[in-house]
């Protein structure tokens, strides 16, 4: 789960980069950058959840 979370963080960043390079119009670029940040937020949630599950297992 932690590995998937970090992959999602990386994927979100690549989405942001792709939006800057491939899209020309400002609104579509902004939307795709925000989508990339949303993917990163999902990845961060996965990483945090995996950390909490690990803590619960240790208890």
């Amino acid at each position, binding site marked *: 789960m932690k590995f998937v979370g*970090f992959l999602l*963080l*990386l*994927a*979100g*960043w*690549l989405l*942001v980069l792709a939006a*800057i*390079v*491939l899209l020309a119009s*400002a609104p579509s*670029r*902004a939307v795709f*950058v*925000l989508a*990339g*940040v949303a993917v*990163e937020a999902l*990845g*961060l949630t996965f990483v*945090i959840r995996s*950390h*909490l599950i690990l*803590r619960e297992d*240790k*208890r």
Partner: protein
Amino acid sequence: MPVPVPGFPEAAMIACLFFVFLVPLAAAGISLINAGLGRSRSAGHMMMAAISSLSVAAVVYFICGFAWQGFIGRPGHVLALSGKSWNWIAAEPFFFRGMAFDGSPASLAALLQIFCVGLAALIPLGSGADRWRLRASCASAAILAGWTYPLFAHWVWGGGWLAQLGANYGLGRGFIDPGGSSTIHVVGGLSALAVTWILGPRRGKYSPDGMAPAIPGHNGVLVLFGCLLALLGWFGLNSAGAILFTGSAPAQTILIAINTMLQAAAGSLTAAVITGIRFGKPDASLSANGWVGGLVASSATCAFVVPAEAIVIGSIAGALVTFSVEWFELRLEVDDPGGAVSVHAVGGIWGILAVGLFARFHGPILNVAGNSLPVTGGGAPGQWLAQLVGVATLLGFVLPLTYGLNWALNRICPFRVAIEGERQGMDLYELGAGAYPEFVTHTEDFIPR
């Protein structure tokens, strides 16, 4: 293509040199805060770790860090994507070879950076307090100074792709961060988060039912004195960064110093008011965290906002840090004794975003080849997006990178001290002597004679 650097007047050079010499005070302040927020039985170890991390970071940065980071207008490796150049890493020789120490902007940047990289390396020490082995913290500082920090700092301060988002893609003036909210603080704060995850919490921090009893810092005076020292360091950091990396005139440092002070004050007062309302009395350690959170946010914004906006930014930073410390400790079970993740990562991210919301530009910005961009005297369209791309890069690239590197390092050189070390205290276990030997209770003194 390298961007030519405009001429650097002698007055700017002298002012910049003066400000750079103030920066070590920020490191002294952060070290004292880290020591004061930890346990008394690990205080000497914390200060020793601070000195060691500063030393390792300086040496490693000298060996290879500056070679990766470089400076505006100096050689870099460039990728061409869709006809635009993406400068992703510098191509300087190792060991500062070829550098003329003549007061040029590049030499001043090298001097400033050797202090800044040490400051970034100090940040994770606060989160790993009372359980992070000395040699492991030094090895982690080496990785930070040799790779993570220089790479991101090149993108922001070395004429890299983030700095050129404005010139290449019309995103405002490109990613702007003169004082290092991102390069120093968020990079350090995210490393602190990675280290905390790898180390796990201190023994006794969380009970089997998930409750988290408070482990208060051992010396509030050290913490609050550290805040005052940090203020002086931040005056230097923000002013020198603005002169070197955004081309601010020395006279503009008056506004920078006013904004820096106001943001620290607003952050601290907000934290004191919030804790006063919630707990009945203001909390000294959270107020100190609010102070430093305000300073961290000021690093990105201080050169481009008016004082009233600085107070708003500082207040929001103080509130964010206060709630974030509790959230990380109680909800996310991240045991961060120094509050490094909240203060440096959360405060820094807020500072970066605040540039996009509040900044006004009254002159060209040096690090984005801004001389060719129109000077509007107001905000730059798309600036918020450039700042958001910077935040996305920190979370999506720097966090996985720093976690992966520290995770691998933990396999080679285990981070966590043995159980006996935690019980005995890091001072005795790793250094063989306590910071406060006269504080030892001699039970025979209490035996009736």
